[in-house]
């Protein structure tokens, strides 16, 4: 006899809560604009598109960060991986720019992965040191100022172009999302990520190539971070110092708001997408309300804490 137990879907709960929160943010923002300006700016397709375009850069970074968080690690080299990829690409220019930028991302990921998987150094500190080395190399290369070189046409297309009225950046994010989501749910590698993140001992004893899984995860994170850097450079038409500073922690926040466990092993990709939308729309509504940076930071902190407490309470 089969005993029917309610299907366990606690993993989806954060996705629903985060999505509901996005709706709430948009609703509050719209009420505000209706009262203050008499328009529903927030809901106009062009505004939404523009916000999603800006959000795409964070979305791509968060996709990579999520992979690393799933295996129970973290990548703090994101800020300068992003910047370095953008700077190298704009410096070299031409048809090789994108390939060079992506290769840089992959190499950084490889270094991070080897440090974490083979040397077994804590990812938090190792990736931090790699970040410092990257920052150092870029200061040495550019002299600490923003390089004069311009983003290539292709980079501009990726970051700022539109295709049939839709920002290309958003299309890239969508493509990345489809790929990452497929990898996570449909491939042996994707399953291995969750297994390693749940219990590295059990993964090892199950014959999962856990070291390789860790290295590949960091490479993917590096690649996606570099891609975001190329897109962002295209959007701004050039690379600049500190362009990656606003991506590492918001990406981690987005992943966690999306319900992934910071210690690894659980989380759904659509949660991360919802988390990115929370962060992006929270920012845009606060800026429409002309909130100061101060209030934004505070609201931001409270939102992360509240959502985590809510997830804890009923999970």
């Amino acid at each position, binding site marked *: 006899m089969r*005993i029917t137990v309610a299907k*366990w879907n606690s993993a989806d709960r954060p996705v629903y809560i985060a999505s509901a929160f996005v709706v709430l943010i948009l609703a509050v923002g719209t009420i505000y604009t209706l009262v203050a300006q008499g328009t529903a700016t927030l809901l106009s397709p062009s505004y939404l598109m523009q916000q999603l375009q800006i959000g795409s850069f964070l979305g791509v970074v968060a996709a990579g960060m999520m992979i690393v968080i799933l295996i129970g690690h973290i990548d703090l080299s994101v800020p300068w991986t992003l910047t370095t990829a953008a700077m190298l690409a704009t410096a070299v220019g031409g048809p090789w720019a994108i390939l060079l930028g992506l290769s840089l991302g992959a190499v950084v990921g490889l270094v991070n992965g080897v440090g974490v998987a083979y040397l077994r150094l804590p990812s938090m500190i190792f990736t931090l040191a790699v970040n410092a080395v990257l920052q150092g190399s870029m200061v040495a290369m550019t002299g600490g100022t923003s390089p004069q070189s311009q983003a290539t046409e292709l980079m501009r297309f990726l970051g700022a172009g539109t295709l049939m009225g839709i920002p290309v950046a958003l299309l890239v994010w969508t493509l990345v999302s489809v790929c990452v989501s497929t990898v996570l749910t449909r491939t*042996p590698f994707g*399953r291995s990520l*969750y297994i390693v993140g749940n*219990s590295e001992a059990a*993964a090892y004893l*199950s014959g999962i190539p856990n070291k390789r899984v860790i290295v590949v995860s960091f490479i993917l994170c590096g690649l996606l971070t570099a891609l975001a850097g190329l897109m962002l450079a295209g959007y701004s038409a050039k690379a600049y110092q500190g362009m990656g500073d606003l991506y590492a922690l918001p990406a981690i926040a987005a992943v966690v708001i999306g319900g992934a466990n910071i210690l690894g092993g659980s989380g759904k990709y659509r949660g991360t997408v919802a988390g990115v939308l929370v962060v992006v729309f929270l920012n845009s509504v606060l800026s429409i309300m002309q909130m100061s940076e101060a209030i934004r930071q505070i609201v931001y902190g409270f939102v992360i804490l509240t959502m985590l407490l809510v997830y804890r309470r009923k999970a």
Partner: protein
Amino acid sequence: MAIENRVPHLCLQGVTKRYGGITALNNVDLAVHKGRIHALLGENGAGKSTLIKVVSGVVPRDSGRITLNDREIAFSTPRAANEAGVVCVFQELSLMPHLSVAENISIARPPRRYGLIDTKAQIRLAESLLARIGCADIDPRSRVGELSLSRRQMVEIAKALGKEPELLILDEATSALTHRDVELFFEVLHGLRAQNLSILYVSHRMHEIEILADRLSVFRNGSHVASFDRGEHDEAEIVEMMIGREITTQYPTKPAPKTVPPFLEVSGLSWGNGALRDLSFTAGKGEIVGLGGLDGQGQTQLLLALFGVLKGVTGSVRIGAQAAGINSPQEAKNARDRIAMIPEDRKTEGLMLAMSVADNLISTSLDRVCRGPFISEEKARDTVNEAIRRLRIKIGDPSDPAWTLSGGNQQKVVIAKWLMIEPEIILLNDPTRGIDVGTKQEIYQLLRALADAGATVVMYSSDYDELIGCCDRVEVMYDGRIVATLSGESLTEQALVSHALNLGNGVARSKEMEST
């Protein structure tokens, strides 16, 4: 001395404790007197550990009465028990490796001066306690993590004495001790007895009990069998009391003994400063070879060595007449002759508890459920359903997380996930520990069926009955060595127990002589 007339220090009346459906303690009566060393004897799972946990406040009892000095007690925490003078020495569970010996010894109630911990007094206290147990050579300033296992255990004992117990409970306190430390420890116990402490002593080592105990109580299957003074019964009689339970488990019939060519050949295997010493044995296709002996004699390490987990293993392992050369579980799984291992701790090593049953089941065979680069939902579902059907795993839905299953079903999931790779060699580390009888029988039948289908099975079990019922041959281990190989007629419970206690052939031979 007519002790039975005195009021016992500790008295248990009708104490019962159940874990889920398993009765760990069944209506137990016991009296412990002051100035006596009282030994508890019994097989693994006879209820000794549960009794200690109930008395020392780690777990509550379900029913019955416990009195201390004629007053009823029910401790809710180990700390409450300590304050009443009941102190239990656990196996290095309560030591913090990064703190110094002195800090560990007085961690709960450090000596203070001006409100601050008085480090000098703390060191003096540690010195005097260590001197009392003959371990003056341990520097109280050294960190516990730097000490050997044996010395750590002595620190644990010093820590217990520092709590000034009236009733001292020792659970396998000597299992990690070196020979020299055991002797020191015995002197201490004799000294404590002279100071009129009551001591409850649990050990698997018969020799020790003969030297130490004034009174012995034998437990079997959660029940108290008998209590008697030392010398009333000889070793063979005591062993008989320990094992003399009715056989409740049914085992699949073993095939008639036959000689099979060895498939797995281990010779001269050693590892890690004597953890494994010069082990040699073979196992053929269709055979179930058991590893016996007390817990922690190297059985786990032997299985890990075969599975490629240990570094620096010397000696040779040959599979199918070829050198195995396996350096990781991944290599073991993908070798020409695939090896599976059911690990010791299913919760941390066998399962991803938070993941679904289905995900757990396919975790060893992700590449086998693929179509092209992608996992085929259909193949995965079919394999999962097949596994659930084959092992009769009782679950609501394959998408339920593994932690929602009962222990027996969890273990079935671990076994099932390994059967997915169709292994030639199956290593099992105490697969039925903490599992209900019904599931146990299913596992026995499964193992026999796998062997009949040509697999080579090597199984460690802490349950002697199971070794006898299941295995074609048993290698008994003691202190990292194989001390006996038992099969056919010689595979008896007496022989297993006496070799496990490393009594040599003494008891076994005397039994044989009796029967002839």
